[in-house]
């Protein structure tokens, strides 16, 4: 059975034996990001719009449209992640530990783009997975 609580956001956490400053570079320098994530034109500047480019697949052009939301060097980074008409937010949090850094990635929201205009704001499209949770919860 579907358990909505675990689906509202995706969280991956891991302790890494490297200092936050170094991990920050891997998260924010385009050439390094490409090595572990995807091709990109990322800049660590709030408001910067960029895209990740993956290998296109059937019915998917491989483009993920993003906008930088938060840049707190060595601590927190967040950007939107829009693909296939769904928009979520990816937030990275780095916390120093005795042996290195606790790395936490949360992808949440899974809402839609800004273009919902069916009956304007009254019907405004809200957080999709939030609704999904309610809908799926009603399935019993």
């Amino acid at each position, binding site marked *: 059975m579907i358990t909505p609580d675990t689906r509202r956001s995706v969280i991956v956490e891991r302790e*890494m034996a490297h200092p936050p400053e170094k991990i920050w570079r891997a998260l924010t320098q385009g050439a*390094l990001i490409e*090595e572990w994530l995807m091709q990109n034109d990322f800049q660590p500047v709030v408001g910067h719009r960029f895209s990740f480019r993956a290998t296109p697949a059937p019915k998917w052009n491989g483009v993920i449209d993003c906008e930088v939301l938060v840049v707190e060097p060595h601590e927190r980074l967040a950007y939107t992640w829009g693909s296939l008409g769904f928009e979520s937010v990816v937030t990275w949090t780095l916390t120093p530990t005795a042996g290195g850094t606790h790395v936490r990635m949360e992808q949440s929201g899974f809402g839609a783009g800004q273009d919902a205009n069916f*009956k*304007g704001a009254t019907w405004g*499209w809200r957080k999709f997975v939030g609704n999904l949770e*309610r809908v799926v919860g009603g399935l019993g």
Partner: protein
Amino acid sequence: MIADDVFRALADPTRRAIFERLTRDGELTVHALTDHSGVSQPAVSKHLGILKHANLVRDRRAGRETHYSAQPQALAPLVDWVSAYGAFWRERFDRLESILKRMDQ
């Protein structure tokens, strides 16, 4: 593949709004869905056809009106897709760690 139909159906904001309204308000006619929607009735009917093709709505004919209701269990492929992101990120974490090992301090 039914998952493709579900994604295609829900990739459109107007169809998401229609589907959301049906999950919230229960069974509705095309007229009720069209009123105050800012979208023409033929357009709403076309969207409903696509939602029906993806099994996201069911229709019931009563007299001259067709009533539509949401079939939220058809969302299952989408829920699976969201959870699949977990696997995606864990694999990327592995790659991130191997990059870190190769990087200079």
